[in-house]
């Protein structure tokens, strides 16, 4: 609107005042160059509120001891302590272990399900059923698993009835059982995310290639393994990257099901920062941890995410 009316005015005044027209054209041209930047600027400025501002704030705060009183400068003490903090390293390790096992399971299961479902006449129905866990709030899913495994012990009870174990499992006192519980809840809720994407990718592939291979006598599995899967690679990478981002930030399940226990064995990095900052009010220390995570995030974003999304577009 603005641009057309502006140029219209320029034309109208062109004849009597030539110099004004020139300034006007110049301004119009500058506006034309700036226009795309102006369109994207509000979104970028808004996003800086949750990236640049917190980043700078966290960096500054990480050089202070911040408890209840005034900020006390401590230099690099927060970072030095952090690098010697076995709980911080433990949290990184837990995030990595829980995240990678969970992601690998979800990927394999989703690919298997997608392989069986995408040619099925009832693929729509399967998709709707499989989608259901994903649509519950994470906090609700956390409570489902807390109740079934810890509070009401339904899972143990079923195993006892089936004669597989004799006494109730002491899940809360075992690090690996607690980790497995977090993994199970995550696999249950988020495998559909990958499934939906994989099915769409498989359905979008050229059927003629499959048919040709089929006529040559190749089995469905061979076609899938040698033709469909390589074609799907960029899609798989994008989907896994997105899933990996969310798994590494896992919080609600830890907060509700395990509280990071036993012995900090299920404490993820998100929970570590939350506990340090908002339970012990050690904000400077938590900020130092945030800064380290921020740096790791930026490196991973540059190395992995950029490539994944660029390759998927072509």
């Amino acid at each position: 609107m603005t641009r057309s009316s502006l140029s219209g005015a320029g034309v109208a005044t062109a004849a009597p005042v030539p110099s004004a027209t020139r300034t006007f054209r110049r301004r119009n041209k500058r506006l034309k160059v700036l226009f795309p930047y102006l369109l994207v600027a509000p979104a970028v400025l808004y996003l800086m509120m949750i990236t640049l501002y917190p980043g700078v704030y966290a960096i500054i705060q990480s050089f202070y001891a911040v408890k209840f009183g005034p900020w006390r400068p401590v230099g690099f003490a927060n970072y030095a302590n952090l690098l010697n903090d076995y709980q911080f390293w433990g949290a990184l390790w837990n995030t990595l272990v829980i995240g990678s096992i969970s992601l690998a399971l979800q990927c394999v299961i989703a690919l298997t399900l997608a392989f069986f479902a995408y040619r099925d006449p009832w693929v729509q129905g399967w998709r709707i059923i499989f989608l259901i866990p994903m649509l519950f709030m994470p906090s609700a899913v956390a409570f489902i698993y807390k109740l079934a495994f810890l509070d009401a012990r339904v899972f143990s009870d079923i195993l006892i009835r089936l004669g597989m174990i004799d006494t109730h499992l002491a899940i809360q006192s075992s690090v690996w059982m607690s980790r497995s519980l977090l993994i199970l809840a995550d696999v249950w809720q988020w495998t559909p995310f990958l499934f939906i994407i994989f099915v769409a990718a498989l359905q979008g592939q050229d059927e003629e290639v499959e048919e040709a291979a089929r006529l040559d006598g190749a089995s469905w599995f061979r076609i899938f393994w040698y033709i469909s899967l390589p074609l799907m690679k960029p899609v798989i990478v994008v989907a896994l990257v997105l899933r990996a981002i969310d798994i590494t930030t896992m919080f609600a399940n830890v907060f509700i099901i395990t509280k990071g226990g036993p012995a900090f064995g299920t404490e993820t990095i998100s929970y570590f920062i939350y506990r340090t900052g908002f339970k012990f009010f050690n904000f400077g220390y938590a900020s130092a941890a945030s800064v380290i995570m921020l740096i790791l995030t930026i490196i991973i974003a540059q190395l992995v995410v950029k490539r994944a999304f660029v390759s998927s577009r072509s």
Partner: protein
Amino acid sequence: MASVRRSRGESHFTRYLILGAWAFFCLAPVLWFLSIGLRPRVEIITPQPIYWPTFSLDAWHMIWEDWPMAKYLRNSVLAIIGSVLIDLVLAIPAAYSLSRYQYRGRDDIGFYILSTRMMAPAIVAIPIFFLFRNFGLLDTIWALMLIYAAINLSVVTWIIRSYMLDIPKELEDAARTDGASDLRILWEIIIPAILPGIITASVIAMIFAINEFLFTLLIASTPNAYTMSVALANFTGGSDGVIYNAIALVAFLAFLPVFLVVVAIQKHLSRGLTMGAVKG
């Protein structure tokens, strides 16, 4: 030929065995949790789990009478709708700019927007907490609205951008030769053409906003700004422990509208979930 038919028959059997097993694994916890919501509280945590409980609407009365559930629901709905509107106002021009113009730094700007999706809530939680505290926004739905919008802006922008890239340029060129301005083309041609994309982006943003947990937990410290998601985590009756049947019913209350909307946009879901990278 016979062997082909046989192998197909076998694959049918394995296919339905595997898909059926996963369907059972998906649904069994859901149905069991529904039964938790419809049983009296004394039958939830027992020495022996009860598989055939007495039917009871205790929890239903409880969530409406003992808890300000209507308020939580209202908080959720207002914060989510507000955040989606903020996102659309910011994302549509941004997506238009990223998909329609050639200019220096465009790809970097686009990637910057995308990369904010990677931000872990825990990393930025502390500064955001102090920011909102300084503005007196803690414990208000305004703060939730702003933060949900920020979380989802990257997703919404990229989804809409992907749909805009699909529109043939000729459509615009025709209008442009008629003398229409860029903004007018955006408003009158592009937006109607990508309506499915806008709806998909809004639905995805809605789901993420409902699910958001950490920020809501920090920002909403009293029932004043509790949303459904965080209200659940606080459904502990003090010394009585966790009130599971109420939690279950609230979980289903939040689930139903999401489920209906998602079924309606099923075809666009994979594209929305991958921020436009996969065209389903």
